[in-house]
């Protein structure tokens, strides 16, 4: 049933956000620390587990697929409620600080991309089935 997929997605999102809030409170940060990231990992683990045991059927996955397809429209709605006027009215200093940080980080992406590559390149050869993790990778 489609609702099983929607329910699984909801449970993972709620759990993830809960973990993020708890982690934030534990380390004294007034923010959700990686909640969505944890939720994504939970969904990956659960759905792979359910699929491999044959309990997550096509119909259920439609409940997740619908929201994936809704993602871009939701981003458009999110864009429509940004404080764009505020960003422009912040004056030259705010504009330059934001813009320069964006440009510098963007320009360095290929460099970081290269740093990680050599030490990780040989690994696909000894790739194991998912679900296990090797020390060092998630350090």
């Amino acid at each position: 049933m489609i609702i099983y997929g929607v329910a699984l997605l909801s449970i993972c999102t709620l759990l993830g956000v809960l973990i993020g809030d708890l982690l934030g409170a534990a380390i004294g940060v007034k923010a959700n620390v990686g909640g969505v990231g944890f939720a994504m990992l939970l969904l990956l683990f659960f759905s792979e587990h359910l699929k491999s045991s044959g309990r997550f059927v096509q119909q259920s996955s439609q409940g997740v697929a619908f929201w994936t397809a809704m993602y871009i429209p939701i981003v458009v709605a999110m864009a429509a409620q940004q404080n764009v006027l505020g960003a422009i009215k912040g004056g030259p200093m705010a504009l330059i600080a934001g813009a320069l940080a964006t440009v510098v980080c963007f320009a360095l992406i290929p460099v970081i991309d290269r740093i990680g590559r050599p030490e990780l390149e040989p690994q696909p050869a000894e790739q194991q089935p998912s679900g296990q993790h090797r020390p060092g990778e998630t350090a």
Partner: protein
Amino acid sequence: MTSTLDILTSVLVKNGLLTAFAVVGITMWVSYVLSARLTRGHLQGSALAIMLGLLMAYIGGVVTGGKNGVVDIKLLSGIGLLGGAMLRDFAIVSTAYGATLTDMRKCGVSGIISLFLGVVLSFVVGGAVAMAFGYTDAVSIATIGAGAVTYIVGPVTGAAIGASSELIALSIAAGLVKSVMVMIGTPFFAKYIGLDNPRTAMVFGGMMGTTSGVCGGLAAVDPKLVPYGAMTSTFYTGLGCLMGPSVLFFATRALIG
């Protein structure tokens, strides 16, 4: 006649989420038509839709003087629900379904390096700009630097180290500029940084950090890459909130004296 209009308005307001679906759906359709006719598909329909969204947000801000773009227009308040944190997070999490754990683990190290580098570098650049504009105290420099990290890290840091509300507003503005620039700029510059695979998407998420910008930008480049960028960028704000008022502020104070 006025009463008919009143009834129409009240129906649209009462069914705000449905109004939002309709408005966003029409916006997407217009964008895809414009993309095909005017740019022959060079500028993706979804990228155009996000720009239209931002343009509407600007108009909404000018018309109402509020901070929430079109949401401050009563008729369009449902957009706030559709594009709000709850459904946004829900939809971002759902994209993980198309990702694979093996891809995520393969890029784990570069993702983590990019997270730390992205936060520190944005902070330093933002702080340097603040100094160039004549700020000399550590609190101001750190608050603006944190704003260049994201528009959430700015106010969290500013509040923690006792910055004035004017400074906090500036730091939010810096973060907003970043978010808007990433949303708009990513589709144009994606090919120059090789943004076409999960690994680069994770590095991109870690370096840019601003979740709305990263997810909007990636959606316009290739929706398949969204989960990888979202994964790292979601840890970025948390890391920024952690480092901003502590390590980064102390380092700034030590350097400025």
